[in-house]
């Protein structure tokens, strides 16, 4: 069977919501990375068989955002495109879907990736207001217009905030932070442990600034085009444990442990990857960064969505016929420090392994090979893009350090886990 090669990738800087990319749509962000990837690789976009992007908060003005991205980036209109959404793992899903398409012979070269502009999540009207407004527009005479107008109340104008709704699980009614608190209590993970983890994320991201530049396309964002953005802007240079300790818990004011400091940042960003069959890469004279060896998705309880990786990781290891010892580097997305720590505890636990039938596959993970260039706590988590970023960052890291295997994993809002093994 042919291997699935990932030959090149680029991403925009990841920038905090409402900051430098405030005026840039998710499709434009993605187009920056795609266009530059095409320019740098000198690949003729005619060769692209399909475009697949992951995106969670799909913009109302970009139905099937992948198609819009393709059109903005100079991909010929004859190339089809579709969009995938597996919430926080949408950026993995796009690569996996590309792989499946290639394996089944439906495509040989897929432009994949993920994009998210959390700055541009909409505020929505309440249903009541929507109904009054459509009544008003249907009203034929002055009387019925007036009648509709008199139905309006101040309360109708308070918007429903798209971002808040997106980060709340409708099945269990908890928002993502609250699910993190569930894990903190269950696994007995302290505030201190979490802050310590967050601090390391910032420190590592800071140290890797120049390394990460390799995967970043500098962007001069509109609509003002005032200056260039070259770096991820969520990384705090002088982050201290004291500063982290001063923050108030957000989701549980009194006994909570999850703060803005030990959670991932709400961020805008996009990633583009070339995924193709090994033979197509050879034909086009492109050297693969690495190959997708295996992937797995797991379902978990929605209220404990953060534990997803603890299930997806052993599953993907089993599929690949490997154990944790074979893995040389690991990225677990830092949705919340507590959620990563809970996964580490679970993976190291004999009982957990026996309970779920993962014996022999897992074990304790050496922190020295985990998220070595920092994670979402420092870099941010533009939900649809993060999965693709983990793959890109991991492949760059494996090439830099000449490592044979790498594993990336994410927890997924709604109660899932995703994991993929990359090899060279």
């Amino acid at each position, binding site marked *: 069977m042919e291997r699935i090669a990932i030959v090149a990738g680029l991403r925009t800087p990841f920038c905090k919501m409402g900051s430098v990319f405030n005026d840039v*749509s998710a499709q434009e962000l993605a*187009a920056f990375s795609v266009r530059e990837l095409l320019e*740098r690789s000198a690949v003729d976009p005619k060769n692209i068989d399909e475009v697949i992007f992951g995106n969670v908060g799909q913009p109302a003005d970009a139905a099937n955002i992948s198609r819009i991205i393709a059109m903005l980036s*100079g991909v010929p209109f004859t190339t089809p495109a579709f969009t995938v959404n597996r919430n926080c793992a949408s950026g993995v899903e796009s690569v996996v879907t590309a792989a499946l398409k290639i394996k089944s012979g439906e495509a040989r070269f897929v432009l994949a990736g993920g994009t998210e502009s959390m700055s541009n999540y909409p505020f929505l009207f309440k249903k009541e207001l929507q109904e009054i407004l459509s009544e008003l527009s249907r009203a034929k005479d002055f009387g019925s217009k007036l009648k509709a107008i008199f139905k309006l109340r101040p309360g109708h104008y308070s918007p429903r905030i798209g971002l808040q709704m997106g980060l709340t699980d409708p099945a269990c009614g908890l928002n993502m932070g609250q699910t993190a608190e569930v894990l903190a209590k269950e696994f007995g993970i302290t505030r201190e442990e979490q802050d310590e983890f967050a601090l390391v994320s910032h420190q590592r991201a800071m140290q890797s600034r120049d390394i990460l530049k390799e995967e970043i396309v500098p962007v001069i964002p509109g*609509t*003002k*085009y005032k*200056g260039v953005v070259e770096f991820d802007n969520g990384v705090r240079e002088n982050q201290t444990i004291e500063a982290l300790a001063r923050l108030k818990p957000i989701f549980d004011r009194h006994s909570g442990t999850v703060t803005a400091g030990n959670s991932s940042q709400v961020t805008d960003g996009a990633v583009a990857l070339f995924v193709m069959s090994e033979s197509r890469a050879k034909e086009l004279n492109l050297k693969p960064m690495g190959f997708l060896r295996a992937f797995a998705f797991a379902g978990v309880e929605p209220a404990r969505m953060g534990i997803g990786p603890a299930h997806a990781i052993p599953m993907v290891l089993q599929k690949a016929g490997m154990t944790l010892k074979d893995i040389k580097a690991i990225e677990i997305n830092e949705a919340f420090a507590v959620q990563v720590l809970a996964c580490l505890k679970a993976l190291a636990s004999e009982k957990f392994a026996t309970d779920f039938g993962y014996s022999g596959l897992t074990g304790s993970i050496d922190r020295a090979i985990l998220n070595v260039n920092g994670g979402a706590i420092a870099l941010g988590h533009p939900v649809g893009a993060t999965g693709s970023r983990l793959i890109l960052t991991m492949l760059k890291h494996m090439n830099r350090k000449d490592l044979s295997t790498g594993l990336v994993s994410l927890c997924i809002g709604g109660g899932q886990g995703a994991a993929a093994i990359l090899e060279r």
Partner: protein
Amino acid sequence: MKWGPATEVAVFYKVENDIATIEFNHPTAKVNILTSDVIKQFNGFVTQAQNDSNIKVLVIRSGKKDVFIAGADIKEIEGIATSDVGEKKANAGQNVFNHLEDLTIPTVAVIDGVALGGGCELALACTYRIGTFNEKIRIGLPEVNLGILPGFGGTYRLPKVVGISQALTIILGAKTVSGADALKIGLFDRLIMASNIEFEIKKFCDGIKDSSTRKAEFQRKPKGMQAFLDNNFIGHVLTFEMAGKNVRQQAKGFYPAPVKALEVMKETFAAPREKALDLEAKGFGHLVVSDVSKNLIKVFYLTEKFKKLMPPECAALTPRNIKKCAVLGAGVMGGGIAQILSANEISARVKDVNYDALAKGLQAAAKVYHQLVQRRRLKPSQATAKMAKISTTLDYTGFANCDAVIEAVVEKMEVKKVVFAQASKAVAADTLLLSNTSALSVTEMAKSVENPSRFMGFHFFNPVHRMPLIELVYTKETSPQTMADALGLVRRLGKTPIIVKDSPGFLVNRILLAYINEAGYILEEGATVASIDRVMMDFGMPMGPLTLSDEVGLDVGVKVLHILNDAFGERFKPAPIFEKILEKGLLGKKSGMGFYRHRQNRSSNPFIETLRPAKVISQEQLRELSERMIFVMINEASRCLDEGVIDGPDGVDVGMIMGTGFPPFRGGLLRYADQYGIQGVIDVLTSLHERFDAERFKPSTYLLQMAQKRTTFYPV
């Protein structure tokens, strides 16, 4: 019988059941034109339809692709020598269209392309006008562009169809509209599918031939503001008032046609047909013999010719399809170039040395798109898509698959050579290499690249999106294929080319700098900044020479003057006052101060006046000053012709009109010289030469030879 185009059968008639069709289909020309003869043929068929009692509907259409009727015969209009003849010609056309209008059966004009001037007027005389969904449809009355007014009933009928406010916009602004817009304003009654046109026409005709069908059912009722302006007395007064103000402001006293058209429309608005058409014909007769009209028609021919310019050696070559173009140097010019490329669906790869420069380029491009969005010419999403066609880089990545490179870096030969040497290595061996230099030697620059046969000057004018001219500068090595490719690109960008030989300052800047420099000398002698600019505005220039200098930057102008001074000597020595002003850093708009102060309100910069003797200049002297500034240009242009910088006077005139805004109603710089009289030009120059003992006034050998041979720039 006399053979020739005038007697060719260009109109055809057929009857199917109860529907008669008159088809315009000129046997040899690509478009249909309403010559007197064609109108006569048409009239015969109208009579035929009238006399056939079986006919229920008369359809009028065209056998040409994308053209209904392109207009009246401009050659014929140009040949009209007296107002009487003009009036009679208008009357003749009007009578035919009246005949058409007076038919008792309904008439339908089917418009599947261009319907301008007389073509539009013919359609207006029909009961119904139906268009197709063809994007090539342009319908309107652009006569004032040629210095005349619609003479076949257009000024009378258009207000009846679309309302007075729209009619004034279209006629006074020489506006043409698309099919969709024509439907919106009520000029079209229906849009039909061209793919099934026979069926659609028949269906439409079947629907209207029943005498119970009322035209009113098709008519659009104006709403809101337009309804107010169109439907009551106060609205009319206001509309004419506003239109009058606009027209006077835009015509500046130079263009009589829109003023006359407004006057006619105001008088005929409520008049009976006979009287209205009579006034229209008189107005037409009055305008058609004016110098302005004759000149505008000549300029029209020139621009049509130059739009299609193709040297014989390139005629057989296919210009390459340019999909992606690199732009070297961002900034305002590079940004402008990137914008015009992206606007025409060419992907732009802009390179500069730092991100600030790149950001400036993107700002320049975004500003143009922003304006287009504000003027509703583009939707915001379209502007986004166009902007996404521009990518930026600090190195040469992405150059390998570029089809062309346009260089717009700082005007320094060393820098340009380095940049081209690098870029030519980053692109394919046959990639087109173009420099936007405004004065530097293209031949010298071409030495820095491998395969200089692909190298040319490609000189845009600022602001890129507004100025229609591109000066193509060839060297001895430039290949015909390169010329063909460059011409193809010019056309793709919707611009007009002139082709000039590589020579310092090329054509336009060389002539223009002689003019601006003269303004400097005059300033030095004591005229005020404002009076110098005023006198040239009065001549018809869109802005005065010193305002222009402020726009471009005095440093840029003086730099080019030095280049010209080095090449041509004494006559291009920068006016000493320029150097003094430069020393003070008064560059113009970009430094906030120049000949004017550029704040919220522009005002004269009092400092300038301190640099020279104060002197009061009389109106009489001012007139002489304008002659000085114009005649040094003529003198310099004649030298350009002598040196073969350009191969004819028409190129000079197109260059000056499109590159510098030289007033079109003057017919062009050299057309103006011809009209002034070559000997007269020489006399003025000679007396100036004697008075100032300055070389720049010495009449050129070329002029002197012309006077001797009693020839003019253009053949008589």
